[in-house]
């Protein structure tokens, strides 16, 4: 109902306000004041038009409030085509979430469904977290459950949001809700062509450039939801500040998942906020099916090439741990990862010589180095890299085929498309298994 008023007026400043009945109720006197001050502007000789405008807007406010009341008391019925709208007629016995998510690969979150809310638990929001986080996702227009004490209550479906991690952007694209994005953290890290186009239309705000929050802009836009991540470091993490400001912030811990499909399944987490479980289920099942199919191709290979990852950063070479998601990728791609027996889930810092001793005869090298676009770039950085057999044979593959400046699509859409990443890897290690596939994220350095 409120929506209809909004459309007929077309008044941008009230977009958010008129969407949200509660906001309107709480702040109607402010809006009224705002309207008066803006329209009359201390001129007693205000024209008749302005007077009429004031009268009209006051009427709107009153009607808006009345509309909400009517909605809540359940007397006005709005056509609910799907579960994307507010409930007008709350019925305690109705299951408002007929579509439910089931989690198969992701270990980091669980969801339990109740009649009019979902309870989402993030067991480990960041690696050093002591306590889990619990979010209640409350169906819009339904009463809040009294017996639950969550960390955040988010009214769903969410109509406007900001994302602070580029890995959340592909989720929005997949769930067809990218139009609801009102802000992103830092443009320089975003690859998505869809978002880039949106930016050119000037309706997406950058709110945390270089990791520094633009608090005023965030408050002005007042999103229904902010999705971000935390690393457990008070210096780097922005979410405590956002929570303190009373914003609706949820942490996404997909980066802690140790399997590629586990990371991709966080699509379902994002879907919970839009009541898009069915779509997420369908999309993810396709991804998982394709992934498993490619992984099955490599099960019969007899010769598994040895693989080395990472590069030397000023004396320290970070290689992927044997229990990391990268190691899982290599295993599924039919490769013999040199540190496969290691028990680390993250990365292991090693010295250059330690890596050289173990990896100088490796068949393939995947450096994952943003700045390397050719073999010459590698030797310019350090001549000793040329001693690796993989380098001498030209078997160096980098994941920066889709990269513009600091934005690498491998770390963006690659997280949601593990099937494509796996196909790339299989194409690299066993080209005959996928003859028709063209490398998407990786490129062979020349």
């Amino acid at each position: 109902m409120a929506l209809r008023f909004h459309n007929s007026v077309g008044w941008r400043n009230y977009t958010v306000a008129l969407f949200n009945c509660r906001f309107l109720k709480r702040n109607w006197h402010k809006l009224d004041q705002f309207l008066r001050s803006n329209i009359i502007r201390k001129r007693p000789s205000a024209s008749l038009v302005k007077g009429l405008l004031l009268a009209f807007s006051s009427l709107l406010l009153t009607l808006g409030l009345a509309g909400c009341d009517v909605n809540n008391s359940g007397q006005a019925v709005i056509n609910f085509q799907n579960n994307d709208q507010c409930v007008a007629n709350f019925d305690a016995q109705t299951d408002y979430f007929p579509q439910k998510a089931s989690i198969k690969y992701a270990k980091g979150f669980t969801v339990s469904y109740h009649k009019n809310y979902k309870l989402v638990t993030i067991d480990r929001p960041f690696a050093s977290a002591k306590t889990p986080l619990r979010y209640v996702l409350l169906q819009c227009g339904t009463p809040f459950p009294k017996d639950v004490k969550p960390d955040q209550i988010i009214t769903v479906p969410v109509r406007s949001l900001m994302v602070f991690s580029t890995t959340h952007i592909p989720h929005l694209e997949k769930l067809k809700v990218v139009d609801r994005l009102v802000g992103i953290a830092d443009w320089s890290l975003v690859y998505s062509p869809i978002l880039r186009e949106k930016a050119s239309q000037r309706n997406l705000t950058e709110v945390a450039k270089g990791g520094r929050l633009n608090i005023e802009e965030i408050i002005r836009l007042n999103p229904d939801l902010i999705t971000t991540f935390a690393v457990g470091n008070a210096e780097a993490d922005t979410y405590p500040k956002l929570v303190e400001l009373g914003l609706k912030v949820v942490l996404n811990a997909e980066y802690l998942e140790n399997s590629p499909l586990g990371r991709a399944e966080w699509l379902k987490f994002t879907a919970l906020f839009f009541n898009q479980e069915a779509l997420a289920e369908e999309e993810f099942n396709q991804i998982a099916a394709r992934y498993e199919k490619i992984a099955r191709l490599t099960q019969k290979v007899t010769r598994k090439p040895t693989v080395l990852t990472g590069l030397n950063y000023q004396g320290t070479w970070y290689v992927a741990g044997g229990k990391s998601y990268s190691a899982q990728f290599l295993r599924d791609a039919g490769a013999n990862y040199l540190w496969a027996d290691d028990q680390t889930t993250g990365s292991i810092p090693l010295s250059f010589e330690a890596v050289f001793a173990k990896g100088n005869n490796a068949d393939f090298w995947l450096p994952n180095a943003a700045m390397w676009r050719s073999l010459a770039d590698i030797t310019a950085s350090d001549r000793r890299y040329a001693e690796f057999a993989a380098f001498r044979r030209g078997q160096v593959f980098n994941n920066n085929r889709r990269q513009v400046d600091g934005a690498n699509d491998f770390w963006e859409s690659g997280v949601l498309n593990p099937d494509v990443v796996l196909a790339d890897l299989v194409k690299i290690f066993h080209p005959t298994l996928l003859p028709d596939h063209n490398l998407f994220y990786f490129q062979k350095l020349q």
Partner: protein
Amino acid sequence: MLIKRNWRSLLLSCAIVLLAILFTLSISFGSVPIPLGEVISALSNPEEMNSTTGKIIWQFRLPQAITAVMAGASLSISGLQMQTLFHNPLAGPFVLGISAGASLGVALLVLTGWEVGGSLGIVGASGAGAFAVLVILLLSDRLVKSATTLLVLGLLLGYIANGLVSILFQFSNSDRLRNYINWTLGSFSNVTWAQIPPFALVIGLGLLLSLAVTQPLNALLLGESQARTLGVKLTWLRFWVLVSTALLTGSVTAFCGPIAFIGVAVPHLCRHLWRTGEHRQLWLTVLITGASLSLMADLSTRLLGRGIVLPLNGITALMGTPIMLWLILGSSSAGHGQRWHL
């Protein structure tokens, strides 16, 4: 007097032996365990150079040990010069803002993502930054009268450079920040054989210059006016000390990053151990002790084993501060200013 001389020579011989031992340890101990016999055979047989062990020793450990020796010696010598020139026990190679200038050069390269020239780009940028600071210092040296003003100027240049670096942070991304921060942590492991000759050449020039100014620096210990009456041209002395320090610290910072504490701690340690402030004697002892301490710090970065490498500047700080503390507390009981006399 003769006995005292002999005692000092004996101590110097011990320091040289220690340096040789540390150098050998540095080549023998790394994240990859290699038995001493294999180390020796790899070093003696040219055919062994192409085996994995040979490559590790020739391509990784030997350049790293040589770099550590050169860097430690250079920083300590320039620290010695700075402490005398500014009459300040806390002065070190970096008081002139040379490392800050180098940092600014590297920050401009790494943080803005130009990424030209790989490792040589970083060396070039760092050298250019250090050189720019040197030019400013030399130009202003003609205008300022006292060493203290020069010291303050160096500090101010440092603040400006650091301010610009923090502004660059704002326009960077996390990957580039990580690269920059890694550079600031310091490391001897990035210097390859191709870079050692130019590195050694610049350092050799700087060391020769520093050797040439030992006598006037001795006179300066007596105070600026005393030195002037002894015929020392202070502006001339300042000029050459500045050039020498810039060559030494500029090149070390360019190749290894800003290495902290060694340059400040080693001159104190040597004055204390050899009980002298005489620069001609100190020159060799500081050179050798600096090289040893730097090798020791580099060895300590690999102490944890399992291929894990600790940041070099963390180790130099942990090693340097206790030495400084011990010397400062020790000297306060032994009498004021004792270390500063001949």
